[in-house]
C-alpha cells in the first residue's frame, strides 16, 4: 500500500513537472512573438505541437506566428485544426476569416450548411447521439419495468428517439466528411496544378499560398485536387498540407 501511494505521488509529481515544462515553453514562444520574432515563435510553437500534443490555444498562437511570418497556407492549416478542436471559439473563426480574405485567387469556402454542422466537433456530435440513444432506451426500459408509466413517458420517448435519428443522420454526414473528404491547403507561395501526376505534365492552373482545394485522389507523391470552380489538376504533396473534411 505504501509502495503504491509512493508510485502515485511520483506520477503526479512527474505530471506536474511536465505540465510546468510545457507552460514554460509556451510562455517562451509567446515572448518571442511579442518581441516580433515571428518565425522563431512559429518554430517554438511547432516544437510543442510535435512533442506534447495540441490545444486550440496553441494552434491559434502558432497560426498567428505563421501569419506574421507571411505563410498564409500554414496559418490557415493551424486555424482550421484549432477550429476542429474548438469550433465555437469566435477568436479562431475571426482570425481564420481574416486570413482567408487575404488569399489570392480561387479557394474553397465552407457552405452555410457545413458551417452550421461544424458548430460541434465530431466527438461532440457522437456524444449527443449517444446521449439521445441512451435516454431513449432508458425510457423504453422504464416502460417495461413500470408499464403504468408508459403513457407519461410516451412523449419524451418520441422526442429522444427523434433526436437520436436527427443527430445520428448529422453524425453520419459529418463522419463521412471527416473520413472520406479531405482539403488540401497550399503552403508554398504558388503551386501549378498539372494535367497529370508527372513532373513534365502541362500546367492547368495556379493556386496561391493559402488556397483551399478539395482532394479527389492520391497517387504516390501527387494528389488530384479540384478548385471551387471545378478546375481539376495534380499537385505535389510537398506543396500542400492535407486536412480532414470535418
Amino acid at each position, binding site marked *: 500500500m505504501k509502495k503504491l501511494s509512493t508510485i502515485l505521488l511520483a506520477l503526479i509529481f512527474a505530471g506536474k513537472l511536465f505540465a510546468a515544462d*510545457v*507552460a514554460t515553453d*509556451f510562455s517562451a514562444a*509567446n515572448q518571442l*512573438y511579442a518581441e*516580433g520574432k515571428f518565425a522563431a515563435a512559429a518554430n517554438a510553437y511547432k516544437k510543442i505541437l510535435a512533442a*506534447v*500534443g*495540441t*490545444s*486550440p*490555444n*496553441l494552434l*491559434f*498562437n502558432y497560426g*498567428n*506566428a505563421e*501569419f*506574421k511570418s*507571411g505563410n*498564409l497556407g500554414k496559418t490557415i492549416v493551424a486555424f482550421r485544426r484549432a477550429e476542429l*478542436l474548438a469550433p465555437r471559439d*469566435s*477568436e479562431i*473563426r*475571426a*482570425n481564420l*476569416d*481574416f*486570413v482567408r*480574405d*487575404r488569399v*489570392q485567387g480561387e479557394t474553397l469556402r465552407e457552405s452555410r450548411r457545413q458551417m452550421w454542422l461544424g458548430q460541434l466537433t*465530431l*466527438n461532440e456530435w*457522437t*456524444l449527443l447521439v*449517444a446521449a439521445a*440513444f*441512451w435516454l*431513449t*432506451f*432508458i425510457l*423504453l*426500459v422504464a416502460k*417495461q*419495468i413500470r*408499464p403504468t408509466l408508459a403513457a407519461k413517458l410516451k412523449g419524451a420517448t418520441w422526442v429522444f428517439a427523434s433526436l437520436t435519428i436527427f443527430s445520428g443522420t448529422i*453524425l453520419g454526414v459529418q*463522419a463521412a466528411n*471527416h*473520413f472520406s473528404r479531405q482539403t488540401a491547403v497550399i503552403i508554398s507561395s504558388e503551386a501549378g496544378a498539372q*494535367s*497529370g501526376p*508527372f513532373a*513534365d*505534365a*502541362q500546367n492547368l492552373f495556379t493556386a496561391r499560398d493559402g488556397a483551399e482545394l478539395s482532394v479527389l485522389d492520391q*497517387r*504516390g507523391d501527387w494528389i488530384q485536387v479540384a478548385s471551387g470552380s471545378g478546375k481539376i489538376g495534380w499537385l505535389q504533396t510537398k506543396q500542400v498540407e492535407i486536412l480532414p473534411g470535418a
Partner: protein
Amino acid sequence: MNRFRPQIFPIVGFLFLAALGFVPPVAVAAGFTASLDRDTIAVGEQATLSLKFDGVQPQNAPALPDVAGLQFQYVGPSSSFSFINGQTSSSTTYNYIVAPQRDGEFTIPGMRVDVSGQQFASLPLKLIVSKANAPSAAAVNSGSEVSFLKFTFPKNKIYVGESEVGQLDLYLRDDVQNFGNFQLTGVPTDGFSAGKIAGLQSQHRRVQVGNRVYTVIPLAVPLTAVRTGALTLGPFTASAVVVLPSQNQGGDPFFQQFFNQGEQKQVTLATDPVNVESLPLPEQNKPANFTGAVGDFTMTATAGPTNVTVGDPITVRMQISGRGALDAITLPAQDAWQNFKTYPPTTKMETSDQFGFQGTKMFEQIISPENADVHELPPVSFSFFNPDDGQYHTLTQPAVPLAVKAAGDSPMPTLAANKNGAPENQTPQDILPIKENLGRLETKTVPFVVQPEFLALQSVPVLAFLAAFIWRKRTDNLANNPRLRRQRVVAQLVNGGLSDLNKFAADNKSDEFFAMLFRLLQEQLGERLDCPATAITEADVDKRLIYIGASPAALESLRELFHLCNQARYAPIQTRQELAAVAAKFKKAVMELQSLKP
C-alpha cells in the same frame, strides 16, 4: 412464345444463381495485356492505351512508367462479363489517353503488375508520332481543305513581361454543315505564359479563299513573354469533327438539300509556327524600385487613419490601373517606411477585359508607426516599363501627414483589446492577438465514432432493453396463467417443505414430519391434477395420476407414502434413519411428478 420458355428458364435461373453467388465461376486463365488503339499518330492527336486484366482485378489503376515526350492521363476503368457455353469470364480494362508532346518514335516499356501476389507482365508498345503540318498555301487556295487553322500575333518583337493577344482563326469551308468536338490538342507557347483561350463570338466572319468561301471563327490567345530570345509560337494543333454533305446519296438534287444527313469526318488541324523575338528590358535608367511591371499604368494611393497611437494600424490602399500583365504586378518595397512595422499586403484585381490585361490591381497593406517621432507617411512610388515608348516611368504619390501619439497617452486600440471576435459591422484591420494560456492539451486520439470500445458500449442500453422486454413478457405471461403461477408456488413450497422434512427427521419429530409430508403430497398432486390440494386422497393416485403418464414405480412410491402417512397416525415411526429414508423417497417421487406434463 411458349416454345422458348423451357430454354430460357435454365439460363435465367443460372444467371440468377450466378448473381447470388451460388454458381462457382469456371476458372479462366488470368492474364494482363497492354495495347494501343493506334500505333501511328500526329502531334496534336491522341491515342488510347488500354491495360486489360482477364480474370483478375487490381485494386487500383496501375501506375504507368515515365516516357519522355508522352503524357498519360487516366480516363477510367471499364469492365466486361461474358457467359459463353457455360463458361463465365470477366475482364477489367484501365484506359489512359496518350498525348505526345513532340514527334518521334516512342516505346512504352513492358509493365509488371502485382495483383494479389500474382505477377503479370505486358509487352513493350511502340508509338510513332509524326509532325503536325499546316496545309500548304496552294492546298488552301485550291479550296480542297475542308478546314484549317491560322495563327497571327500582332508583333514580331516583344519585351519580356509584355502581354499581347494572339489570334487563332478556325476556317470552315462553306459546305461544312456542322462541326463539333473542337479540341485544341497542342498549344506550344514556349517562352510565353498563356492565359485562357477565349472565343470571339462577335468577330465571326465569312471570307473568300481562292475559289471557296470560308467561315472564320476566331479565338483569342492571351500571351505574356516570360523569357528573352528567339521564341516560337506554335504549331498550334487541334482536332474537330465536321459534317459534310454525303457523297453516296443519289436522287434528285432538290430533295438532297433537304434530306442529306451528311457524313462525319474527323479533321486534324495545325498552324504554321510564328517566330517572335523577345527583347530584354533595358538596364539603362532602370529605377531602383522597379519590380517587373510592364505595360502602361496610373496609380492612386490613400492612407488612414492619420491620427493614431504608436502601434495602431494604418491602412495604405494603392490602386494601379492600366494595361499590362496585371497579375504579375507586385507592390514594391517602400524603403522609406523604416519607422513602420509592415504586414503582408493583400491584393485584389478587377479586370475590364476578358484576358486580364486591362483593369485595376488594388493593394491593401497594414502598417503601424513604431515611435511617436513619425510625422508623415513617406511618398509611395511605383515604377513600370512601357513597351510602347521603350521607357521606364515612376509614379509617386505625395507624403501623407500623420499625427502619432506615444503608446501611454491613450487607451489600447480596440482591435488589440477585442477578445470576442471581430466586430460585426467593421472590417478587422489585423488578426486578433495571441492567447496567454495554453489551455487543455489533447493528444491525437481516434474519434469516438470509430472506437470499438465506444461502439460496444452502445450495445448496453439495447441489451438492457431486451432483458427488460423479456422480463416483462415473462411477468405478463405468469400473471395471465394461474396454473403456471400455482406450479411455481408449489415448486417453491415443496423445496421449502423438503428442508423442513429433513429437519423434522433429524429432530425425530415424527408427527410433524408426516403432517408436513401429507400436506406436500396433497399440494404437489393437486397442482399436477389441477384440483384443490385438500381434495387429494390416496385414491387419486390410482384413479387420475395414471392418465398424466406417471410410471408404475412412481405410483407405487406415492401409494407407499400415503400409506405411511396414514400408518403414522396410529403407529408412528420412531427412528431418524427411517424418517430420512421416507424424505428421500418423497423427494424422488416429487421430482418425477414435476417432470410430468399435466
